[in-house]
Every structure is written in structure tokens, then in C-alpha cells.
């Protein structure tokens, strides 16, 4: 026990542990946020590829477009809203974790909510 405590006195050790705690906290927070976003949208049942409209917290830039293009087929960009088709469950959860995504809403095959 005293050996472990002595180890914590080393700067690289306590700094790395602090970083680790921060990263895990952030990870847990984004996971909770993602669950809440998907629950609100009724998309947390994992029923396969989805058609969704993603609303960003700001006007999208190249960075956001590239992230969303990796998640699914982008068909429409209008202001802060981006329509994505064929989004897999994993990709949906992955984009829901992004804190800059304000809302995710399902749409049907014709693009209607």
C-alpha cells in the first residue's frame, strides 16, 4: 500500500492518472448524453440501419461533414441540419456521443419526420 502511495508522488504517475480520470469521466458523460439523445429520438432499440436528421449546435464545417460522412450517406444539408441515410447502430451511437450534435431525429424513407 505504501509502495503504491509512494508511486503516486511521481509527477508522471499522478499526472497520467489525472488524465485517465478526466478521459474516463468525459467518456462516461458522452455515453450518457448519447443514450439520452437516442432515447429521446426513439432510436435506442438497435433495429438496424436508420434514416436520421442530425441537428448540430452550430453551422457545420468541413470537419463535421467528414465525421458525418463516415457515419452514413449524406443526402441533404440545410442550415444546421444534415440528413443521413443508412446509418448503422454503431455509427448512430458514435455520432450521438459527439457533444456538438444537439439532436438526432428519425425520418422515413421519403425524408419525412
Amino acid at each position: 500500500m505504501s509502495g503504491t502511495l509512494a508511486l503516486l508522488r511521481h509527477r508522471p504517475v499522478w499526472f497520467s492518472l489525472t488524465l485517465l480520470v478526466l478521459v474516463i469521466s468525459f467518456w462516461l458523460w458522452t455515453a450518457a448524453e448519447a443514450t439520452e439523445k437516442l432515447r429521446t429520438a426513439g432510436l435506442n432499440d438497435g433495429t438496424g440501419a436508420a434514416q436520421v436528421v442530425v441537428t448540430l449546435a452550430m453551422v457545420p464545417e468541413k470537419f463535421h461533414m467528414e465525421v458525418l460522412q463516415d457515419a452514413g450517406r449524406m443526402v441533404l444539408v440545410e442550415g444546421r441540419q444534415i440528413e443521413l441515410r443508412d446509418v448503422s447502430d454503431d455509427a448512430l451511437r458514435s455520432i450521438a456521443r459527439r457533444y456538438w450534435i444537439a439532436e438526432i431525429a428519425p425520418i422515413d424513407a421519403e425524408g419525412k419526420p
Partner: protein
Amino acid sequence: MTDISPTPPQSTPILPTFMTRRRERALLGALGLFLFLAAWQISVPLIGMSEYFYPSPIAVYHSFVDLIQRGILPVYVVDSLGRYLIAIFIGTSVGIGLGLFLGLNRRAGRIFGPLISFLYAIVEAAWIPLFVVWWGYGFKVILVLLVYIMVFPVLYNTMLGVRTVPQILINAARSMGASRSQVLFHVVLPAALPNMYTGFRVGAGFAFRSLIFAEMLAAKTGIGYLIYEGVSSQNTARTIVGMICMGLVWLIIDAMYLRPLETATVERWRLVKSGEEK
């Protein structure tokens, strides 16, 4: 008899005595930073250039907050750090391995020494066009470039460290019945450690600077890309945010990892004095 010798002038502390020297140093550093920022902010209306040419510190701060809110900066910093750490790990491993081999094997050192000197002399930027042809733009080019930069300082210093181990230490260990591996792990490696660390530190510094340069050329994320992209998208405040992040990340790496490692290796053998002792 009265002592009439003049009393030596006492140095007046700038800050109250209850403050430690470290705090005083930190406060003075913060004061310097504040004065720099104030001068920068005041100079903006005096110079009268547009924000594109000369953004104010307030604009840079807004840009910093904006980049975090947009989720761009955290991703870029993590991407840069990831590339850097992977390259450092591979470069150090290769450098130490080759350095030990060439240091312990004199004949191999003579055969490959000139070739290594030749390769070390070729500046890394000269390799970039060829690397791009071989691996295209992207992670591989950055990785190969950083590993290349990292390998040579580590290799040279490891080789030097191994070769300069006093023969008397090796003989003493052997006379006590130590095997080859025991001599290597208990005599050669500890004695060569300060040199190896020096090579690591030099390589790590070079690799960090080159990371930014490589990201400007061959990446679509990262701090280097942010610096480059900021100018090309006429958002120079973002470029300055990238530059500040670069400096901050290096300061953190240096203060939290490299300095303590130096204390544990180089200063322990009294090859250099610590900053506190100067």
C-alpha cells in the same frame, strides 16, 4: 573595538518572504505573460490592420472557445498526440535496439557506421517527396517521418553510451562471474542510460516540431493541420490557437514527463545539475 566594516547589501525579495521561490517564479512568469498579452491587445488598434493579418488576443481566445465548442480542437490535439506517441515509441525502440547492436558489436559499427552517418546527414524534409510517393498522404508518411527523425539521435547516443562504459566496470562484473546478459542489464544499460535519455530528449523535441510540419503537409486533422488550415481559410486566429496549443502541449510533455525522467536518469548520475541547483 567597534566593527566598522560595511555590511553586505541584502537582496530585497520582490515578493513577500512567505512565498516560496517557485511561487515567485510562477507569478513573475504570469506577470510577463500578462504584459505581453496587454501589449499585444493595445497594439491591435494602433497598428490598425484587419483581423485576418493581425488578430487580437481576444479574437484568439474567442476562436479557442469556438474550436472547443465545435469539437474540433480536442479531436485535433488527441490526433496529434496519438501520432506523436506512436512514433516516439517505435523510434525509441528501433533506435535503442540498433544503438545497442552497433555499440556492442564493433565490427557491425564499422560496417554500418558510415551509412548511418550518411542517412543522419540527410535532412528529414528531403525525404518527404519520396515518402509521399511511397505511402501517399496520410498517417503512414507522418509516422515514417517521425520515426526517422527519432531513430538517429537515440541510436547515436545509445551507441556512444554503450561504447563509453568504462571497461573496468565490465571487467569487475565479469571477474565476479556475471554472464553476458547480466553484464548487459546490470552494467552496460545503466551506464548508458544517461546517454540514451539525452538521445531520447533530443529526438522527442525534433519529432514534435516535425509533427507539426508533417501535419501541415500530409494530414487532415491535427494541430499542424489547424495551423495551416487557419491561414488558408482566412481565419488566422485559429492559426494562432494552433500555435499556442503546440507550445502548451510541449510544455506539458516537458514538465510532466521529460523533466522527471531526466531527474531519474541524467541528473541521478550527476552528469548535469538540476534547474533548482543552478
